């Protein structure tokens, strides 16, 4: 493991690559701090810029944006009670009250340090675990890969919030979009409706950029003329220094470790990442605390848990992405797109054929994390200024950058049209309240799922039961089945409990929480 880190740093310690990382972190922080813009979009906008670069500098930039972006959200979460990214939702619970009490500096400092610690530990876990996982995954054949993609697809539906049926439809929509193009194995064009450009299927960049970038532009256009113009007043006094002593931070040590662990584990689960982990870590810490009633009034414990939880997910989400090619969340899906753009296929073979790039990714993450802390410390005032850019200039510019991103990969205007189509789909999904992570996984894992299903069945002469001969495949298929049945079982149990309460009014009241 130390070897990888040393190798990685030796590859990135050149002036241009370091500067790229720094620029990435700064850009990510700004995009993360601006509510409505996200790390996903930041990476989408940066992708065209990486076209002309070699993989290692490109990854340095993208990893910088990754670490900066997830951290940027804490600034707006604390100062204006709007989380800049989903990773800082729980930071508003105690961060904003602290800011209102005149403790903005202390809140920001605590958040930055906790995020740094969480990210650091998460990245270390990534570096330690990823190579062994990749080695294990090298032995995966058709059965295992089919089962793995199946389990990933069902798990994200179960784990995503909201209506299960809509989550399934979202994932299925992703699979449907993936059907377009030449079929795997026999290469027959499917659902292309005569469009030659669709023979290779929809491009992943137009898909991601459209779904996340264009839909945001449309959402912004929708509310642009509405009467609710927020007058954002940001209370800013002297914002230098951390406002918190190291001793106080040490006392939060257990909090940090538990929250980071939650972050890493949630990050590893496909489809959910820092957006979920920060809230979960906050809730766990509140339950664990000796003074839970103080949570929400403005105490550092809440901020520490939220930020460390969100930070730990950085390393966590990269694990399935790098070792198996399965994105841990929307942001890593973008990074995956970036890797594929440079001809690198994430998965176990990446560790064999391109170990250099993998190590440079590890090193860039560590460096980016450090830059994040430094920039946050010195640059808060700048970020506060950036929060004031008028939206009516910002979003049109974002459209242009998105179009550049979609066009640049393949020099086809068709991709710009595809991007707009996905933007419409993304916008409608928001309107119909459909989760957007299942569709990403469906789109990205669909062909892997089908290819391996067909390959597996070819080998077993059409017998699906033979898949269960592989222990890994069998276990994963069982996981998939359980995750599909779980919501129904849960409902059934809740209903029978409710019936029992009805039949026995003298008994304890049962609290039903969804």
């Amino acid at each position, binding site marked *: 493991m130390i070897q990888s880190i040393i190798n990685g740093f030796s590859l990135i310690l050149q002036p241009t690559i370091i500067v790229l990382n720094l620029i990435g972190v700064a850009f990510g922080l700004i995009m993360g701090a601006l509510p409505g813009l996200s790390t996903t979009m930041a990476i989408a906008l940066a992708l065209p810029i990486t076209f002309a670069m070699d993989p290692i500098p490109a990854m340095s930039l993208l990893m910088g944006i990754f670490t900066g972006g997830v951290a940027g959200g804490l600034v707006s979460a604390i100062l204006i009670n709007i989380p800049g990214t989903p990773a800082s939702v729980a930071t508003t619970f105690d961060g904003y009250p602290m800011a209102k009490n005149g403790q903005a500096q202390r809140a920001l400092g605590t958040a930055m340090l906790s995020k740094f610690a969480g990210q650091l530990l998460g990245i270390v876990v990534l570096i330690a675990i990823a190579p062994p996982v990749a080695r294990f995954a090298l032995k995966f054949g058709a059965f295992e890969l089919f089962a793995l993609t199946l389990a990933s697809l069902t798990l994200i539906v179960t784990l995503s919030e909201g209506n299960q049926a809509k989550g399934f*439809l979202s994932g*299925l929509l992703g699979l*449907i979009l993936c059907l377009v193009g030449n079929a795997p194995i026999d290469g027959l064009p499917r*659902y292309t409706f005569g469009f030659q450009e669709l023979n290779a299927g929809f491009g992943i960049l137009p898909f991601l950029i459209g779904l996340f970038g264009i839909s945001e532009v449309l959402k912004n256009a929708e509310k642009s003329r509405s009467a609710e113009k927020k007058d954002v007043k940001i209370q800013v006094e002297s914002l230098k220094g951390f406002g918190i002593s190291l001793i106080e931070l040490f006392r939060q040590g257990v909090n940090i470790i538990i929250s980071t662990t939650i972050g890493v584990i949630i990050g590893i689960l496909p489809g959910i990442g820092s957006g979920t982990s920060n809230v979960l870590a906050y809730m766990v810490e509140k339950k664990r605390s000796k003074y839970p009633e103080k949570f929400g009034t403005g105490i550092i414990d809440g901020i520490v848990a939220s930020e460390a939880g969100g930070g730990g997910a950085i390393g966590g989400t990269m694990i399935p992405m790098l070792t198996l090619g399965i994105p841990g969340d929307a942001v890593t899906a973008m990074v995956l797109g970036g890797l594929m753009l440079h001809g690198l296929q994430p998965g176990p073979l990446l560790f064999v054929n391109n170990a250099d790039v993998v190590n440079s990714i590890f090193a860039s993450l560590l460096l980016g994390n450090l830059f994040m802390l430094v920039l946050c410390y010195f640059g808060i005032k700048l970020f506060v200024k950036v929060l004031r850019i008028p939206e009516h*200039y910002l979003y*049109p510019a974002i459209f242009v950058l998105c*179009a550049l991103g979609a066009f640049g990969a393949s020099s086809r205007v068709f991709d710009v049209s595809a991007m707009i189509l996905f933007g419409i789909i993304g916008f409608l999904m928001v*309107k119909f309240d459909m989760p957007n992570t299942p569709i990403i996984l469906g789109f990205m894992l669909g062909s892997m799922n089908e290819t391996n299903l*067909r390959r597996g069945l070819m080998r077993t002469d059409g017998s699906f039961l033979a898949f269960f001969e592989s222990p890994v495949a069998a276990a994963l298929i069982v996981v998939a089945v359980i995750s599909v049945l779980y919501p129904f079982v849960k409902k059934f149990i809740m209903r029978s409990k409710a019936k029992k309460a009805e039949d026995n009014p003298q008994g304890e009241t049962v609290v039903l929480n969804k």
Partner: protein
Amino acid sequence: MVRKYKMDFILGLIFLIIAVVIFALSFSLTAMANVGIGPAFYPRLIAILTAMTALSLMYQSYNKIKNEESSDKGKSERSEPILNAEVIKILVAMIVYATLLRRIGYLIMTSVYLFTHFMIVTDKESRRIPIFILVSIVISVVTYYGFRNIFSVLLPSGILG
């Protein structure tokens, strides 16, 4: 809440139609030689799963609508359209942009698009037309030459040759 459930019902219906279309079109996918289960299998599987899920959603929403209406929550909700005027205008602008991009060229189309977008999202008092024109042209020119010279990405030059 009724509106939400009505939308869920419509969503289910849309997906049901999509599922039927996918299944119907799969019959034109003929398997070549004997390569296992063929290219029509997976689409049909997806179509069936989609149809089942869509029907489940429609059923759930229908029940919820009936429950709400029977519990006398008869308040008429203000119905805002799914796509309001600004969204439709921006979409038209985007589609025109994509359609004419190659023929007219990046510089002109991007400047025109940006100006149009600025105008759509601002109301009369906040418009600064000279600044809009300036910013549109500056962004187009900077990105065009920036991407061309720094990142080696050639953008369509269209009628400017």
